[in-house]
């Protein structure tokens, strides 16, 4: 039975009646306040002092933006135009996809597929595509110590690590022949945290940092691209922090931004940046980023916002970049320019072309999964094993949801 739309129409109509409230009709006035504070942002010395206070033992809970270390820092309200493109560059975009394990299958397995797209900027050369699928079926991979099938978060963490490892491996191969900057684009934030319930989480974390090290050694300008970062409020939190008195910093909940609440950084920078422009380089003040920094200053993750534009549509994206990139303004300029350029390359959609293609290469559709299941079933039969696992519930669903045949007289 499909959804009975006749029973939903009235509810949709009520939703429409509440749309102004749901979409926050007061956001405009809050945005004006944020813009005013952004324009009047104090100089870097004052901001550094305030961040020092927020980092002091008597204050906790500040998860907003902070300027980079003196020498690399930029004024909070800096707006930088899109710099010129380098003559030549090589971009590697990486993305991953997975098939989660199922306890309903005859053989427990999961699959991680990493897709990479290599674009040669400034030279007439067909881009290259690479896919690296890996099937995990050994008990050591698929089961935890208690013999249970691993959870989806474990697969997600392994996918993230493999994406970064593959990016590092490919960069190592390409680095010697690359003319101009070698850029690594990753379709997510770079501050990865692995929950403790993930199997071998410490080991995975080590592998992630090994991959980051490899990327640094290959001189890769690594950028984590976060499209439409609606949950990102780091700059708004900083604006709020700067607006408080010192006593309020010590006593108030720094996660609550009062009159700026319900806004996000994307809304703020959408009002500030023109197409192609980026914001100041900043870093997130968080225990996670501190842990990254403790592994080496190069591994602290900085970010900037950029207004990507196709010429038809604009969008705000956040670009995460490690300090080995952020500390060098030429590298930042190259990354900035190439990201802006990539976003002009797929018609009206302002999104890096290389990332779109990497996603396309990586994605494992439900059809692919069915085919892989069939392949495994054939292989099991060849081994004299019946691959059928009877589940009455699944069989019932399959029958009810299957294609309908029309019977006509």
């Amino acid at each position, binding site marked *: 039975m499909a959804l009975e739309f006749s029973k939903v129409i009235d509810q949709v109509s009520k939703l429409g009646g509440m749309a102004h409230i749901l979409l926050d009709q007061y956001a405009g006035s809050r945005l004006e306040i944020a813009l005013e504070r952004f324009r009047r942002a104090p100089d870097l010395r004052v901001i550094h002092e305030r961040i020092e206070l927020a980092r002091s033992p008597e204050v906790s809970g500040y998860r907003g933006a902070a300027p980079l270390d003196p020498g690399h820092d930029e004024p909070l309200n800096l707006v930088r135009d899109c710099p010129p493109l380098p003559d030549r560059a090589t971009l590697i975009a990486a993305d991953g996809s997975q098939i989660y394990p199922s306890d309903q299958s005859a053989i427990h397995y999961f699959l991680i597929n990493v897709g990479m797209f290599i674009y040669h900027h400034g030279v*007439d*050369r067909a*881009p290259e*595509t690479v896919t690296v699928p890996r099937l995990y079926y050994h008990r050591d991979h698929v089961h935890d110590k208690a013999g249970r099938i691993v959870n989806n978060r474990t697969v997600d963490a392994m996918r993230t690590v493999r994406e970064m490892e593959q990016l590092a491996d490919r960069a190592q191969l390409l680095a010697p022949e690359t003319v101009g900057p070698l850029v690594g684009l990753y379709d997510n934030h770079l501050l990865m945290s692995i929950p403790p319930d993930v199997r071998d989480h410490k080991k995975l974390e080590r592998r992630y940092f090994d991959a980051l090290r490899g990327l640094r050694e290959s001189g890769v300008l690594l950028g984590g691209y976060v499209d439409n970062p609606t949950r990102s409020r780091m700059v708004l939190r900083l604006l709020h922090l700067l607006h408080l008195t010192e006593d309020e910093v010590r006593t108030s909940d720094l996660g609550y931004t009062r009159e700026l609440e319900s806004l996000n950084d994307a809304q703020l920078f959408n009002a500030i940046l023109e197409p192609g422009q980026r914001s100041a380089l900043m870093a997130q003040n968080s225990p996670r980023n501190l842990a990254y920094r403790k592994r080496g200053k190069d591994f602290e993750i900085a970010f900037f916002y950029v207004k990507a534009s196709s010429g038809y549509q604009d969008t705000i994206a956040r670009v995460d970049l490690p300090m080995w990139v952020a500390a060098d303004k030429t590298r930042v300029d190259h990354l900035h320019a190439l990201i802006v350029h990539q976003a002009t*390359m797929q*018609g*009206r959609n302002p999104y890096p*072309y290389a990332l779109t293609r990497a996603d396309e290469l990586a994605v494992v559709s439900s059809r692919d999964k069915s085919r892989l299941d069939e392949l495994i079933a054939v292989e099991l039969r060849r081994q004299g094993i019946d691959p059928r696992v009877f589940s009455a519930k699944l069989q019932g669903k399959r029958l009810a949801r299957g294609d309908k045949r029309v019977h006509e007289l």
Partner: protein
Amino acid sequence: MTTIATNTDYMVGRVLRASTRGFTCGTQSNRVDARHDFGALVMAPIANDESVHVIGLTYAVEIKDDALVSELVMADQVDSNVLRDQRENRMVPLEISVISVGCRYAGGELLHSLPPRPPMSLSAVELCPRDLIVSFMQRQDFYPLVLNAAEVPGDDLLGAAIRYASWQIEDERTRYDFLVRCGRALARQLSHDLKRLEHVLALIRP
């Protein structure tokens, strides 16, 4: 693993779906060339019998799109490397539709009518070799199949097929005689419709 050898010089594609009336084969858009010309004579083995080949005329070549291609079309200009990526890497599928007009038996006998069975899916579709084109086109019994087919542009297709066959004949006088014979056969088939006849004759005029 066993692979079935095919003559790549003649390879047009592989059968996607088929009936005795015709078949559709697919290939990659970056492989499209003269082998996929409108009016070309192609052949494929019929189901479960490699000794009999259905012979057909290519009447439509379709390049499929997808959402990304549609988006790129909207751009003022497309980056040359993106263009190469789309054409060389993305393997945009190409569908070639063929109408069946005859078949060739193992001994070389030709039938100018519908084949006994359609080809199986994934069968290799190849361009007919020159001698087969010339010998098959010597008879015009299959013209009604093309001229009366509802789903194909019959007049233009037959004109293109005759022209295509004439290019395989090296001797100028023989080629002229061939075209005249084809013209006469067309006149018999289209005597009831002089406008159509005039159009097709114009297409094959030497």
